[in-house]
C-alpha cells in the first residue's frame, strides 16, 4: 500500500519528518540523517532478505562502494547532488549486478558465504588501493553537496535530503514489492519448484531484486560521506553488512519500514550507551539476542500485531502491508 493511498498515514509521516527539522539541534539532525541513510540501506536489504529469502552478508559492498564513488567524483567534479546521487545509485547497481551474477544459482549457506567473500574482496580492494581510496585513512575534505544555486551543507538541509531519500526509496521499494516482480520474488522464496513450473525464471527474478536493492543502497551510500564529512573502509567492511542484518532483525524483517526502526534503535544504543560504558557491544549483542529469542518479528512485527489486534477488533480488517 503506497502512502498516496492513505492520506492520514502520509500526513503523519510528513509531521514526523517536519518536527525534528524545526526543533532539533545540529548534532541531532546529523544523527537523524545518519539513521535515515543507514535505514534506507537496511530497507533495501529487506527486499532481499524479507521478500526473496536471500540473506546477503555483503550488502555493505554496494553501499560503501557507492559512498566511495560519490566521494571521489565530488573531489574533482564538485558535490552536485544531481551528479552524486545518480552516480551512487549506478555504482550500487553495478556492484549488485556483479554480486547477483555470482549468486544467481546458489542458495542458503552458499549464498551467505559467496556474498561474504565478495564483500571481503571489495573491502580488500578499498583498503589496499591507497592512491584512490586513501586506504585505512579514508577520504576527508569533501566539497559540500549542492543543488543548483543552493548549498546543502548545514545539518537541516542534509536531514531533509536524507528524509526525502528515505521516503522516495521506501515508495520505490514498496512499489517493487507490490509489482508482479515483487510477488514473484516472494513466490520463488516459498515455492521455487512451482514457480519454475509456472514458467518463472528464478535467476532473472533474483537478479532484478539484486539490482533494485543495489540501486537503493547505492543512492543511500552516495549521501553518506557528505553527512559524516568522511568515508572510510569501515563503510565497506563485512561487519557493517552483519550490522545491517542485525538492524533489520531488530526492526522487523519483511516490513520495509521496520528497517528505519532497527537502524534508529541500533545507532541510538551505539551512540548513547557508548558514552556511558565501553561495553556497548555487549549491550547491543544482548538486545539482539533477546530480540531473536523473544520478538522474532522485530519491533515492526510487535507493533503490527499490537495495532493489528486493535484494528482487527475494530473492523475485522487484518491485511497487513
Amino acid at each position, binding site marked *: 500500500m503506497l502512502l498516496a493511498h492513505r492520506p492520514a498515514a502520509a500526513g503523519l509521516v510528513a509531521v514526523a519528518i517536519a518536527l525534528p527539522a524545526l526543533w532539533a539541534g545540529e548534532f541531532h539532525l546529523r544523527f537523524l540523517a545518519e539513521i535515515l541513510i543507514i535505514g534506507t540501506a537496511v530497507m533495501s536489504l529487506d527486499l532481499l532478505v524479507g521478500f526473496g529469502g536471500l540473506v546477503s552478508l555483503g550488502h555493505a559492498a554496494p553501499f560503501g562502494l557507492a559512498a566511495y564513488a560519490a566521494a571521489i567524483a565530488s573531489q574533482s567534479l564538485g558535490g552536485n547532488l544531481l551528479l552524486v546521487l545518480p552516480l551512487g545509485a549506478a555504482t550500487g547497481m553495478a556492484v549488485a549486478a556483479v554480486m547477483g551474477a555470482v549468486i544467481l*544459482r546458489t542458495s542458503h549457506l552458499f549464498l551467505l558465504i559467496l556474498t561474504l*567473500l565478495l564483500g571481503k574482496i571489495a573491502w580488500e*580492494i578499498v583498503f589496499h588501493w591507497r592512491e584512490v581510496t586513501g586506504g585505512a585513512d579514508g577520504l576527508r575534505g569533501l566539497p559540500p553537496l549542492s543543488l543548483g544555486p543552493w548549498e546543502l551543507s548545514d545539518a537541516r538541509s542534509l536531514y531533509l535530503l536524507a528524509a526525502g531519500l528515505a521516503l522516495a526509496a521506501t515508495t520505490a521499494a514498496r512499489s517493487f514489492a507490490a509489482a508482479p516482480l515483487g510477488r514473484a520474488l516472494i513466490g520463488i522464496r516459498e515455492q521455487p519448484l512451482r514457480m519454475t513450473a509456472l514458467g518463472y525464471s528464478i535467476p532473472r527474478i533474483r537478479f532484478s531484486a539484486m539490482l533494485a536493492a543495489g540501486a537503493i543502497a547505492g543512492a543511500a551510500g552516495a549521501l553518506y560521506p557528505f553527512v559524516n564529512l568522511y568515508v572510510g573502509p569501515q563503510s565497506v567492511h563485512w561487519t557493517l553488512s552483519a550490522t545491517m542484518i542485525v538492524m533489520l532483525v531488530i526492526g522487523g524483517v519483511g516490513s520495509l519500514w521496520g528497517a528505519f526502526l532497527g537502524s534508529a534503535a541500533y545507532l541510538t544504543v551505539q551512540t548513547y550507551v557508548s558514552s556511558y560504558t565501553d561495553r556497548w557491544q555487549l549491550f547491543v549483542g544482548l538486545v*539482539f539476542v533477546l530480540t*531473536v*529469542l523473544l520478538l522474532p518479528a522485530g519491533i515492526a512485527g510487535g507493533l503490527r500485531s499490537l495495532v493489528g489486534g486493535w484494528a482487527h477488533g475494530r473492523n475485522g480488517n487484518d491485511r497487513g502491508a
Partner: protein
Amino acid sequence: MGYALVQILNALSFSALLLLTGLGLSVVLSLMNFINLAHGSFYLLGSYVAVYWFASGAPWWLAFPMAFAAAALAGALLERFPFRGFYARTHLMQVLLTYGLSVIFADLMRWGFGAQILSPELPEALQGVVFLLDIPFPLYRLFIIAAGLVLGVLLWLLLDRTLWGAVVRASVSDRGMVEALGIDTRRVFAAVLVLSAGLGGISGALGAGMLAAYPGLDEEVLVLALITVVAGGLGTFRGTVAGALVVGFALTFSKLWFPEFANAAAFSAMAALLLLRPNGLVAPRQRQV
C-alpha cells in the same frame, strides 16, 4: 627447492589449523544442520586459555586438554540454552542467534583478557627451528601439522568407525527410528555440540603460537573456517580436509605472489571455486527418499 618446501610446510600448518577449526564447525553443520557462528568464540577462548596456561608454569602439554575442556564447558552450557531450541529453526534464525552470541562473547573476552595482542610464551620443547635443506623452519609449525593430522584421524575414527559415531550418523538420517531404539537423541546432539566446541578450543590453543590472540581474531577465524567448510562441501569429512588444504594453500601462496592484494586474490579464487563447484569440492551423494 628448500624455499618451496618451507612455503608448502607453512601452507600445511595453516591448513591443519583450518582443518581442526573447520571440523568443529562441520560436524555440527552437517550432522545437526546447525550453523554455529559462535564457533570463532570457542577458538579464541582456547587461544586465551593456552596463553595463560603457558605463562603459568604448569606442565605445558596440559594447555591443550584445558583449552578443550574450557570450550567444551562453554559449549555444554550454550547447548542447554539457547542452542537446543534452535536446531529445528531456519538457518537464518540460527545465524542471527549465534552471531548475536558471538558479539556478546567477543566483548566479554575483550573485557576479561584486554584488547592487546597476546603472544604465548612457547614451552621450550616447542621453541626453536629445525633446518630443512638449510632453511630454518619453526618447530612449532611442524607440531601443528602433526597435531592436526592426529586429531583429524582420531575424529574420523570416532565418527566413522565406532558405535557411537554410527548412532550420531543414524540420528541425523532418521531421528525417530533412533529414538524408537531407545536412544536419547537429544543427548547425542548435545555430545556432538560439546565435541565441536572442544575442537574449536583445542585448535585455538594450537593456533595461539602461530596467530597469537587478540579481539577480532574470532571473526577472522570463523570466516576462514566457514569458507573452508563450504568450499570443501557440506556433509563429508573428506570435503573439509580438501577445503582446508585449498584455503590454506591459497592464502599462503597468494601472500607470496601478490603481497599487496593477497586476501583479495585468495578470496576471488575461492569465490571462483564455489561458482564452478556450487556444492563444494566433495559433494555428498544426495539421498532422495
